[in-house]
């Protein structure tokens, strides 16, 4: 009896199912529209200030204060960029910044991954204590370190040098922590296989571990480069000469150099964003892929 009922449906049931599906579709459409409206609003909030800065950089001083403002600057005015590149030390600041950020990134990638490997895989007496100290150091706010750090750098006679900008940044324990966590996830049998295959300890790090944590290294590189590129407080107090000044400090100092010049400021802000944009654009595929993989694994 029951077998005969299976597969049959009365017209009333069919109508009820169709009505339910119609309602579900309508509800789905309304939710979709609402979701897009919220996303559009968030996009506008994020993009609008950036667009306004780009806009201001392409206008002359009267155009910036024109009301109502022109949302499409045509013809564009490149005078701000010209003055930035010729009347200020902006190119030098940019070179300094790129040099410091790249140096710190390369050194830290190397040091952090080696320290991470040692803390994750090698049998070292007291490595738990070292790791706990690193975690403790992560919790100390940078503000509390400024005076001792400045005193140290001053005593070593490194103020106003590239060393003052590079060396303190290398001591940031965040990278070691990240690398340790990445490397901990690699199976121990891989290293053991390499040991039996005749690879030295450094060879295991170089030939086996590094290639396997490449996505993690990319994430770390982007974090360090961005952090260095945008750092302001420490470069401000450890340098005072144009020769080693970084772009963040230089741009902030434009105000004291030439009074209020919104066009020049906007041009410097846009120019400052270009290198970081390039780094992120080049590495974004690996960066996003890794972030996603990490999220899914959780």
């Amino acid at each position, binding site marked *: 009896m029951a077998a005969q009922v299976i597969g049959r449906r009365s017209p009333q049931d069919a109508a009820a199912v169709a009505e339910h599906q119609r309602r579900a579709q309508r509800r789905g459409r309304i939710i979709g529209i609402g979701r897009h409206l919220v996303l559009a609003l968030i996009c506008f909030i994020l993009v609008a200030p950036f667009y306004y800065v780009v806009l201001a950089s392409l206008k002359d001083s009267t155009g910036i204060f024109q009301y109502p403002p022109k949302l499409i600057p045509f013809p564009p005015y490149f005078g701000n960029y010209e003055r930035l590149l010729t009347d200020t030390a902006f190119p030098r600041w940019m070179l300094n910044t790129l040099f410091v950020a790249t140096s710190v990134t390369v050194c830290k990638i190397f040091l952090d991954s080696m320290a991470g490997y040692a803390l994750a895989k090698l049998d070292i007496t007291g490595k738990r204590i070292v790791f706990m100290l690193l975690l403790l150091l992560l919790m100390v706010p940078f503000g509390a370190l400024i005076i001792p750090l400045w005193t140290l750098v001053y005593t070593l006679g490194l103020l106003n040098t590239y060393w003052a900008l590079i060396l303190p940044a290398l001591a940031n324990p965040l990278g070691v922590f990240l690398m340790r966590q990445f490397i901990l996830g690699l*199976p121990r*049998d*891989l290293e*053991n*296989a*390499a*040991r*039996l*295959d*005749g*690879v030295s300890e450094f*060879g295991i790090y170089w030939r*086996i571990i590094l*290639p*396997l944590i490449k996505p993690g290294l990319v994430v770390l590189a982007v974090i360090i480069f961005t952090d260095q590129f945008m750092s302001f407080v420490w470069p401000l107090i450890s340098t005072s000469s144009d020769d080693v000044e970084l772009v963040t400090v230089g741009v902030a100092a434009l105000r004291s150099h030439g009074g209020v010049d919104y066009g020049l400021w906007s041009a410097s802000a846009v120019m400052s964003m270009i290198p970081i944009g390039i780094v992120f654009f080049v590495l974004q595929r690996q960066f996003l892929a890794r972030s996603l993989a990490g999220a899914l694994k959780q």
Partner: protein
Amino acid sequence: MTTIQPAVPGPATSGPAIELVEISKRYDKTRALRGVNLDIESAEFLVLLGPSGCGKSTLLKIIAGLEDPNDGEVYINGRLANYLRPKDRDVSMVFQNYALYPHMTVGTNIGFPLKMRKRPADEVASRVREVATLLELTDQLEKYPDQLSGGQRQRVALGRAIIRQPVAFLMDEPLSNLDALLRVQMRTELLRLHRRVGRTTVYVTHDQVEAMTMADRIVVLRDGVIQQVGTTDEVYGRPANRFVATFVGSPPMSLFPGRVTHGDGGARRFQGGLTVDLPAGPAIDGEITLGVRPEGFHVVGPTDAGAIEATVELVESVGADEYLSVRMGPETTATVRVESGSGIADGQRIHVRADPAAVHLFDAEGNRVPTEAKHP
């Protein structure tokens, strides 16, 4: 045409290929191995068998040099190896999870041990081709490990181990990640490879079927102590103690405690009312346990000598045979093997008898009491 060389006994190989003397290993308060002594002959396929945590993988790692023993000596090819680094011990290892380098192609993985030993590139390439031919991997050399099936990955791991032609291969549960069908296939392939290459192989497993089908000799370990070393027939047919008797064999041996006062053979009763004609050879006295494997029982008529009534609780068919779980008393159960199609059903009352020639006796400490005197 492969030119993988069979094992060539060198000047130092007149003795065992691997010799372990009083090996002990502790992790904090846990004793993983206690005084292990073992000689592993050249070209032998030796299986280390035991439950999880018995120390078999630790022993393998100690041979490989990946762990250091707290006491004892390891000799490889007659040479003290305790202070040699893993790469200098002339052994290669196949890991449970294959441990292939995921960022290298199959060809690079297989050739990696030779490359690390700074062999010329053309020699590495030709040896990789030989090994790939032997393992039927020639079409896969340019692929990466994640593009291979489980069986292919296992073969790549084997290839990386055999390309160096070491004194011994160490295999740590290499088939445990494969599905049942592939495991049986790979078992055959491994044995074929072992016979072709002819090197000493030390194989760790907790799967007794794997151990019994592959081993020249089985070493049964428990809590870091060797329980028995012997061929499959010896370990199955003459278990050294109660642990080996119950660990080896599936379904396990049924045990019946009993007590014999100054016995010297004759019919004795054990728990559950089981009566067995004990051997007259060695004098038996005190607590004793009788062990009977499923095939040691026979279903008989109620009037047969030694017949005991039992209730069938479960009938499990495994194809050609059926295993009956029977209850002989409130605390006594046993497993009985009968041929398939016996018609016996759950809940049925039957009569069984233990074959005196197939029983095993264990003393109060669990050690085997020889019964061969009466039943040669």
